[in-house]
Structure formats: structure tokens, C-alpha cells
């Protein structure tokens, strides 16, 4: 196009120069013919000049003709180019309009007062309005009342910083009142007419926002749950020694929240008495990479003690390193509650024991009376042997020896009773269960006699030891035997026989069974037998078996009742045998 223009101007110059040459030639001819001294020579010259003029005119006509053609072509092409440009522009504008209207971004153009000058269709549709309902309206219309100040401020910031882009996240409200979250990018520009406008592009971030909210909520729930359950979580990458704690874990260990946690911090908090054991567990876990589960105490800066229970699962991370993911629970309250419960149970057991012994008072008195009668008779005999004319020292000596033995025997009975009645601290020691059974039976001879009940003892010899509280286990046996005796009270048509057996099963458990041939169990009673306050006796409190069961369970065993194939019922309890490596 530029070249064409150049060509066109050159030919125009040529025509002009040609025209000027013709004019000069014509002027010269006129001067020669009509000038002050015309002569032949001059005429000839003039004729020549005229011919030349004619020729020149002919050339000029040709030149002008070609130039006009050239110009016409030039003009024509120019018009077409212009048309093409216009079309291209129109197309481009349509394209841009398309983009503006339907790009999934909401575009707003507002003036300094916040009146909407322009909004794209997408933007209007997103808000549930037709475009014309927004134009000329305040842009605040699409914001919640409570967010409007924020909008005003944000727009003001843009207006104060012309040309700078600002962005913020805010809720918008649709025509139907529903909300959507948007991220707005805005910029103030000055228009040609010097008016300030603000261009705003916003994208819908509702989904992201919801996801964020859900995540935040979930985190809050987790934190709340951790706080409520006194359970903190932790992660521990063994190779990098990196430890991550949750807020609750920090709280449990009594440290301020810190970006990094060291194993040393953990160990430092552990109670000195538990430190070696805990360290051992930690070392073992880090070398073996196996799940761990342990309990230890923490000694807090205020000298209080916390019981914590830590459990962790080993996972292998991307780089094949072992990482533990675990939870640590503050079980102090649980421990205290358990202790209180244990106290209460011990107290109840004690009361039950005292009550049971009260019922056996006659039997116990008999057990003391026997040796006492012997003591008195022996003492009298000894005196009489000595008072003889010739004192018989040998007989007196024998009688006195008997007194010592019988006195001790009476003392033992009293001690046994006192042990059962006195509220003693729960003490777990290795015990021979047969011995425990025999100790109880010595208190029950008279009771068995009074109820005309015979006793068969089948105590397996050489049983392994169990670890337990002697008094509590005596209480269980006492209770079961007395129950058995009572169950046989109504029996008149057969021999009343109580059988006590001890034996060991294949699973390293010691079993003690007390069987009677009494009234037996009804199906309905069998289910409720161990419930507190359940009793079939008129004078019973209904706590006996319930207490027995809790005692047996606290020893790691089980107490059960079954109906005999013949008449009566059998109660059995199991106790785990003492482990070789058990340190009580």
C-alpha cells in the first residue's frame, strides 16, 4: 500500500512537470509570433515550437490518462482495504464482546459512586439478574448488608490508587437471596472524559470456600474432639527425628505451641520413675519400626502427675522411612476415677465380707471354742498333775505343751477372721489356691455341720501359683461355699454334699469349682445371678456374687455359673497362673 502511494505520487509529479513544460512552450510560441520582433525565422521557430507543443500535449494527454487510471485503481484498492479493516474490526469487536459477555468471569464497571455502568451477561446470570436490572443500580445491591462497608472501603482504596489492582474475597448475594463467594480483582482507571471508573472482575470461589470451610470445620471438630477426649495426636519420622504434635498434645505435655518438637522434650517430661521404661519403649519402637502402645506418667512443672497412654501405628513413608502416627491420651482422670471405683469396690467387698462373717459368727465361735476348751482342760489337768502328792511333771509338761499348741490354733483362727474383717490394702502376692481354700474351710466346719452338709474336697496337688489378694480370694470362696450350703437347705431327700475342686487347665489357668446338689438355677435366674442387688434369698443383699465377679475379674479371671446335669449348680472361677517373668 505504501509503495502504491509512492508510485501514485510520482506519476502526479510527472504530470505536473509535463503540464508546466507545455505551458512554457506555449508561452514561448505566443511570444515569438506576437512578440515585438517577429520574423520568418521566428515563424519557423514558432511552427516548430507548435509542433513540439502538439507533441508535448499528445504526450501529456497520454500521461494524464495513464495517471488517472492509476489513481482510480489506487482508490479502488484503498476502499476495499478500508472495508476489510472495518470488517476485521467488527469481527474483533464481536469476538471481544463474546469474550466479555460469556467469559466465566463476572465483569463490572462501576463509577466512583458505585453505580453499575456495565456488567457482562455471565456476571448478571450468575447473580440471577437480567443485565438491565443491574445497569444504573448501585453495585451494593449484590452484597449482603453486613458486607457493604467492606465493599465501600475496597472501592475507595482502588479509587485512591488509580491503576493499581486490588483483590479481595467477599460474599455476593443473588436475586434469590442465596450467597456465593467471589474473589474480586479491581482497578480504578480514568476515562477519556476524565471520569473515574472502577473495573471489577470476579470469579466464583464458592466451592473452594466451602471446601476451605469444611476443612476448617473439620479441623475445629478434630481439635475440639481432641480437647474433649484429652487425646492429642502426633507424627514421628524416625529418620529425620521430626515430630509433629497437635494442639492437644502440646497441652497434655504442658508445652507452648512450638514449630518443632524434639524427642528430648518428651523424655524430659516423663516422670523420673517411668523414664527408663518409656525410653526403652521409644528405642525399641524406633529400631523395630513396630506399632507401640504404652502408658507412663508425666511430671509437670507444677509437680503434678499426669497419666498418659500413648499408642502409635507405624507406617512407611514415600522415602521408605518409618513414620509413626499416634495418639496420646491424658488418662489421669480416668485413672483417678478407676482408683475411686476400686476404693468403693474394696469398701463394698469389705462390708460384704464383714456381713458374711457376721452370719458365720457361730461357726467362727466354734472354731475358737474348740482350742479354748482344750486349753482350759489341759491347764486344769496340768494343775492336777502338779498338785498330786508326787507331782507328775511329765504329764504336766505334755499338758502345757498342748496348751501352747491350742493357744496358737485359737490365735490363728482369730487372726484369719480379723484379716477378713479388717479393711486392708489390696495386696497381690503369689498364692497357692489350695491353701486359700483350706483357710476358708477351717472357718466353715460348724456351718457345714449345722446344715448337715458333707464336704468333699478334690484339690489337685502341685498346682501353679496365682497372683492375687489372699483376703479377696478367700472372700470369693467363702461366698460360693456359703451359697452352696444355703442352696442345699431345702434338700431333704438326698445327701447334701458340697464339692470343692481345684485343677489346672491346658491354658495355664487355675480353676476352682464349687458344686452343690441344691435347688439349682432357673434359666431366668442364671442370667441375673451376677447382677448387683439380685437375690433369691429373703435376707440377702444381693451383692455377694456381684462382688465375687468383680474380684475375680480384677484378678484377670472369670466367674461363671452352670446347672449340673443332676440336681444343683456349679460355680467356677478361673485365675491366670503366675507368669515366670511376672514381677508383681
Amino acid at each position, binding site marked *: 500500500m505504501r509503495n502504491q502511494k509512492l508510485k501514485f505520487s510520482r506519476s502526479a509529479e510527472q504530470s505536473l512537470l509535463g503540464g508546466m513544460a507545455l505551458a512554457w512552450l506555449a508561452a514561448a510560441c505566443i511570444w515569438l509570433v506576437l512578440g515585438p520582433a517577429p520574423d520568418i525565422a521566428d515563424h519557423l521557430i514558432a511552427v516548430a515550437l507548435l509542433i513540439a507543443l502538439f507533441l508535448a500535449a499528445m504526450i501529456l494527454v497520454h500521461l494524464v490518462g495513464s495517471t488517472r487510471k492509476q489513481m482510480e485503481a489506487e482508490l479502488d484498492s484503498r476502499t476495499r482495504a478500508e472495508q476489510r479493516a472495518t470488517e476485521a474490526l467488527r469481527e474483533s469487536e464481536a469476538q471481544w464482546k463474546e469474550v466479555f459477555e460469556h467469559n466465566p468471569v463476572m465483569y463490572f464497571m462501576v463509577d466512583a459512586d458505585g453505580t453499575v455502568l456495565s456488567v457482562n451477561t455471565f456476571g448478571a446470570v450468575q447473580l440471577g439478574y437480567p443485565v438491565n436490572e443491574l445497569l444504573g443500580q448501585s453495585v451494593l445491591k449484590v452484597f449482603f448488608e453486613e458486607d457493604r462497608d467492606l465493599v465501600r472501603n475496597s472501592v475507595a482504596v482502588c479509587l485512591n490508587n488509580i491503576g493499581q489492582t486490588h483483590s479481595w474475597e467477599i460474599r455476593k448475594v443473588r436475586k434469590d437471596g442465596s450467597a456465593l463467594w467471589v474473589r474480586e480483582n479491581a482497578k480504578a482507571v480514568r476515562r477519556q472524559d476524565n471520569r473515574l471508573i472502577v473495573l471489577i472482575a470476579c470469579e466464583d470461589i464458592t466451592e473452594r470456600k466451602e471446601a476451605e470451610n469444611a476443612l476448617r470445620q473439620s479441623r475445629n471438630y478434630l481439635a475440639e474432639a481432641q480437647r474433649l477426649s484429652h487425646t492429642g495426636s502426633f507424627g514421628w519420622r524416625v529418620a529425620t527425628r521430626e515430630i509433629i504434635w497437635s494442639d492437644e498434645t502440646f497441652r497434655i505435655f504442658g508445652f507452648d505451641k512450638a514449630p518443632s518438637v524434639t524427642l528430648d522434650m518428651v523424655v524430659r517430661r516423663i516422670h523420673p520413675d517411668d523414664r527408663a521404661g518409656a525410653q526403652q519403649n521409644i528405642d525399641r519402637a524406633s529400631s523395630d519400626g513396630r506399632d507401640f502402645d504404652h502408658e507412663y506418667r508425666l511430671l509437670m512443672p507444677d509437680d503434678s502427675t499426669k497419666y498418659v497412654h500413648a499408642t502409635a501405628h507405624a507406617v512407611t513413608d514415600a522415602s521408605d522411612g518409618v513414620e509413626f502416627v499416634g495418639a496420646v491420651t491424658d488418662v489421669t482422670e480416668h485413672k483417678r476415677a478407676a482408683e475411686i471405683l476400686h476404693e468403693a469396690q474394696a469398701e463394698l467387698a469389705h462390708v460384704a465380707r464383714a456381713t458374711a462373717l457376721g452370719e458365720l459368727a457361730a461357726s467362727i465361735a466354734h472354731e475358737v*471354742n*474348740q482350742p479354748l476348751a482344750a486349753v*482350759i482342760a*489341759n491347764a486344769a489337768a496340768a494343775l492336777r498333775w502338779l498338785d498330786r502328792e508326787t507331782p507328775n511333771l511329765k504329764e504336766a509338761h505334755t499338758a502345757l505343751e498342748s496348751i501352747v499348741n491350742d493357744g496358737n490354733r485359737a490365735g490363728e483362727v482369730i487372726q484369719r477372721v480379723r484379716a477378713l474383717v479388717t479393711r486392708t490394702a489390696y495386696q497381690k502376692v503369689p498364692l497357692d489356691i489350695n491353701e486359700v481354700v483350706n483357710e476358708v474351710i477351717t472357718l466353715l466346719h460348724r456351718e457345714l455341720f449345722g446344715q448337715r452338709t458333707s464336704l468333699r474336697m478334690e484339690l489337685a496337688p502341685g498346682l501353679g501359683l496365682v497372683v492375687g489378694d489372699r483376703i479377696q480370694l478367700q472372700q470369693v470362696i467363702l461366698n460360693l461355699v456359703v451359697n452352696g450350703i444355703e442352696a442345699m437347705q431345702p434338700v431333704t431327700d438326698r445327701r447334701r454334699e458340697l464339692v470343692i475342686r481345684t485343677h489346672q487347665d491346658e491354658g495355664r489357668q487355675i480353676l476352682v469349682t464349687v458344686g452343690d446338689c441344691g435347688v439349682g438355677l432357673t434359666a431366668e435366674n442364671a442370667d441375673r445371678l451376677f447382677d448387683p442387688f439380685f437375690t433369691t434369698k429373703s435376707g440377702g443383699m444381693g451383692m455377694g456374687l456381684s462382688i465375687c465377679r468383680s474380684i475375680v475379674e480384677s484378678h484377670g479371671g472369670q466367674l461363671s455359673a452352670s446347672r449340673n446335669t443332676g440336681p444343683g449348680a456349679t460355680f467356677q472361677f478361673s485365675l491366670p497362673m503366675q507368669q515366670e517373668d511376672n514381677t508383681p
Partner: protein
Amino acid sequence: MIGRSTSPRNVASAEEPIVYVVDDDASVRDALRSLFRSVGLRVEVFGSAPEFLQSKLPDVASCLILDIRLPRLSGLDFQVDLARAGIHIPIIFMTGHGDIPMTVRAMKAGAVDFLTKPFRDQDMLDAVTAAIERDRNSRDEAKILSDLRARFGTLTSREREVMALVTAGLMNKQVAAEIGIAEITVKIHRGQIMRKMAAKSLADLVKMAQTLGLQRAAPPQ
């Protein structure tokens, strides 16, 4: 009366009374043995009722000290068994506290005494002395009765008939009328009766008849 033959070892001391003790508690048993021996009483101890029953019992004054609460066969059942077997030996029961119902039963069944454990030695010795005395007396009475029975056994049936009527207070004439014999015959029978029974007087004979439980036969229709 102990109706068992005496064992040879008991012959020498046949007249010495014996105290038997049955108690399952060895301490009590041994203490009682020492006590009785210290006052010079013969004593035999047993751990159970069957042991006592299996032993040979000499025919001498004796008493039995029995724990009321014996295992298996109780003292009370044992008392009944002895009575059934015709063994009449005075029994002193040893009881515990709260054994009152059993004690009552024992006394009703003929126990001579009961002592509550623990007992005073003197109480025990007094009870034993009294029981032996009682046994001795009953043995004497039994001896008298058996002598009387032996003498009565020598009477003819007519003499027994006459004795029953005479001791019932009938005159000779009435006796004669009653059984339809002559009065003189009654007199002869009566003389025989007095001699055979070794009666010193009619009153003596009446007492004997009472002891023997002799009754006048029902008059014939």
C-alpha cells in the same frame, strides 16, 4: 446295761469305772484324757462314733462324753443308735454356744448332763462322777431285778397265779374261790412262794410283785 462280753484286758480292773470320750477334735480329746487321768479315772478316747461302737466295752460303771457336733453321725443320732442297740450308758454332751435346741433334744432323749465348751474342769469332773454313780446305781438295780426274775422263774405257773392274787390283796379264801382250789392248797403254795422268792413278809412280796410288774390275771367270765 452294756451287754457285751468283757475283753481279757479289762478283767483285772473290772470294777474300775471308765470314762469314754468321743470328739473329732484331737486337742479336746487329748486334753480330756489328761484331765481324767490326772484325777485317777480310767479313760478311753475315740475320734468318731463308729470307732466307739467297734471297740469292746467292759461291763463296768462308765459314762460317755460326747461332742454334740460330730461329723457325719452327730452326737444326737449316735445317742439314738445307742438306745436302739440297748446300750444304756449315761451320756454327757459337750455343746457349743447356740446349740440350745440340740441340747433340749439331747436331754429329752435321756442325756444326763451337758456342758458348754469351754467348760470348767470341776464341772466336768462333777458331771462325770455323778454319771458314773448313776450308772453304778442302775447297774445295781439291774442286778437286783435280774436276781428277782431268776427267783420268780423258779415258781410253778400255779404259784405265779397265786402270787399275783395274794399280792393283789386277796385273802387265802378268796384266792381259793377265785382259782377253784382248796384253801389249804393255797396256803401250801403261799409257803412255797415265800420261800422261793426269799420274801421276809407279805409286804416284801408285794414290793417284789410290783418290781416284777406282776398283775392279777383277769377274772374268768
